[in-house]
């Protein structure tokens, strides 16, 4: 069902919402994880620096006054992380930096935060060095970041699933409505009442669609009734007209021109009557006047009509070939089935050529009427429309194929047209 609009594939509403959620989640994850890592790291280093400075302050406050220069070697021997060295590099302020030291126990380089601070012992300048191992804290940070990432992931997945579920539930009335509209056909009296739901907007939508459908059905009905009434009312004036023509024909004082004129009028009246009848038939099919379905033997119907149409075909020297399977019984209204076959026959004769051919085939699953003809292949999309004539000079009224299509639709059959081997072929799939 996917379509392409402006070069983009249309997607389902839910897919589209979820796509944006997913996109946002990934961005948050990608940004949040490193940010959290750097902030934690910064906080920890800050903490370590503070600790080192406190160590130095404690040392300067409590240890320096009692420390002799001779004690420095001993001090250094018993302190691993605190050292006192000669100020060879002329350090004159506190310096904090990273440095790696080789750990003999774990046999690897480990990161340390180091403080070099100038101090004076007995008036001599010395450098106080304090260091803090960062390994444990680093592990902690990584664990925290991982945990955090995991939490974010769980949160987003949960959100995603909940949104999906809720959206599906929220949008269900919308999809119900959509399905109803898709199934709606104006000429079928289906129930178009929508179930009320708890969402105001959808109720409004359903209400508006209901109004729209009701209005359309009303217009359609009045239009259909108008056609039916118009066709019906036309019968009386045509009857009067026809009767008058027949009476004029009886006059003794008619000359040949007058007689020919009346004869032409007679033929035109016949066309008018036929047109009117066809309009009435179409209206009646649409208003479901032919609803009684029965078992219909198609072979019998075709054979019953064959002699009549063979006679009709004779004037154009058209030959009719049939290939009819026995016992093809279908469910249809009998009158409609007869009308279908007679209109198919008429169509194949009307649009045929001199010395043409008609081929009729009936099988288990299809009725096929094929005929030769002077016309080029027909335009399939327009051919079933009312009054669409492929041959403007034809005496037909352009309703035959509409009637055929209506009957096929009413019986839930399908009709296909194709032009092969110079034969116009109509196939009705039962």
């Amino acid at each position: 069902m996917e379509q392409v609009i402006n070069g983009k594939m249309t997607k389902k509403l839910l897919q589209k919402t979820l796509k944006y959620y997913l996109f946002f989640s990934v961005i948050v994850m990608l940004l949040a994880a490193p940010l959290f890592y750097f902030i934690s790291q910064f906080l920890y280093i800050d903490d370590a620096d503070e600790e080192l400075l406190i160590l130095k302050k404690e040392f300067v406050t409590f240890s320096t006054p009692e420390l002799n220069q001779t004690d420095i070697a001993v001090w250094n021997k018993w302190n691993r992380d605190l050292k006192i060295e000669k100020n060879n590099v002329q350090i004159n302020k506190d310096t904090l930096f990273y440095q790696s030291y080789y750990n003999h126990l774990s046999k690897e380089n480990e990161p340390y935060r180091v403080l070099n601070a100038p101090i004076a012992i007995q008036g001599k300048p010395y450098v106080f060095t304090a260091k803090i191992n960062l390994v444990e804290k680093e592990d902690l940070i990584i664990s925290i970041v991982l945990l955090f990432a995991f939490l974010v992931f769980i949160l987003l997945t949960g959100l995603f699933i909940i949104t999906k579920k809720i959206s599906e539930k929220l949008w269900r009335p919308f999809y119900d409505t959509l399905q109803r509209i898709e199934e709606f056909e104006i000429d079928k009296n289906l129930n178009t009442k929508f179930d009320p739901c708890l969402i105001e907007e959808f109720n409004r939508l359903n209400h508006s669609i209901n109004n729209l459908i009701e209005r359309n059905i009303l217009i359609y009905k009045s239009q259909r009734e108008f056609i039916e009434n118009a066709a019906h009312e036309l019968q009386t004036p045509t009857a009067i007209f026809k009767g008058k023509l027949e009476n004029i024909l009886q006059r003794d004082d008619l000359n040949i021109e007058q007689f020919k004129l009346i004869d032409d009028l007679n033929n035109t009246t016949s066309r008018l009557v036929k047109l009117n009848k066809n309009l009435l038939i179409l209206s009646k099919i649409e208003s479901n006047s032919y609803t009684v379905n029965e078992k219909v033997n198609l072979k019998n119907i075709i054979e019953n009509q064959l002699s009549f149409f063979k006679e009709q075909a004779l004037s154009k020297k058209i030959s009719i070939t049939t290939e009819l399977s026995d016992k093809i019984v279908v469910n249809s209204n009998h009158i409609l089935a007869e009308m279908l076959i007679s209109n198919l026959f008429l169509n194949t004769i009307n649009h045929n050529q001199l010395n043409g051919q008609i081929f009729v085939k009936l099988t288990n699953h299809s009725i096929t009427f094929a005929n030769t003809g002077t016309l080029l292949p027909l335009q399939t999309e327009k051919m079933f429309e009312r009054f669409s004539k492929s041959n403007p000079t034809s005496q037909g009224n352009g309703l035959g194929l509409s009637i055929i299509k209506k009957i096929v639709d009413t019986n839930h059959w399908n009709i296909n047209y194709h032009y092969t081997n110079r034969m116009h072929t109509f196939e009705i799939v039962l």
Partner: protein
Amino acid sequence: MKILIIEDEIEIATNIKNYLSSNDLICESANSLKTAIEKIDLYSYDCILLDLMLTDGDGFKVLELLKKQNKTEGVIIISAKDTLETKIEGLTLGADDYLTKPFHLSELLVRIQALVRRKQFNGNNVISFNEIEIDTTSKTVKIKGNKIEFTKKEMDLLLFLIGNKYKVLSKSAIAEHLSGDMADMLDNHDFVYAHIKNMKKKLKEMGAADYLKSVYGTGYKWEDD
């Protein structure tokens, strides 16, 4: 023969009257249910032509009345309604035939003749025109006493032509009569030629005079000159 035309459309009644009157039929017309009932009470007719939609009521009431009074008039419904239901209802209520408007007057005439034959002679009737004799029961045609082999269509055609004797018939009227229910499916009336040609040939072979005249090339008239 007396005919009652029950029809509220005066123009249609006049058309029918004009066409039928010249064929030794006497026509009266009633343009409302009220006058129709009065006339049926007072007189008896050979055939009643009945329109269903009358200004002051349903034409079916006439059928009910005839049944109640045990009258035997033949009734032909002439109506613009052509649903199967209306036809069945009319025929079950006692109508003998049903003709949908618009129809050919020539068709109406032969239907009246057939109905009267059925009613009055129980169908045992021989129609004759000079040396031609048609027995409608045994469906045989004889010329000067000799049987002639006619197809069903040719016999039908002959009955139609003799029934409308001295009338000019258009090819379309003949075609529609011969086609019966399929008349609406006619696209071309040329097939009438073939039937007329065959019928004329058979009649001529048996020594009948040529009564069927062509009128200006497109019409026909059965007459004895």
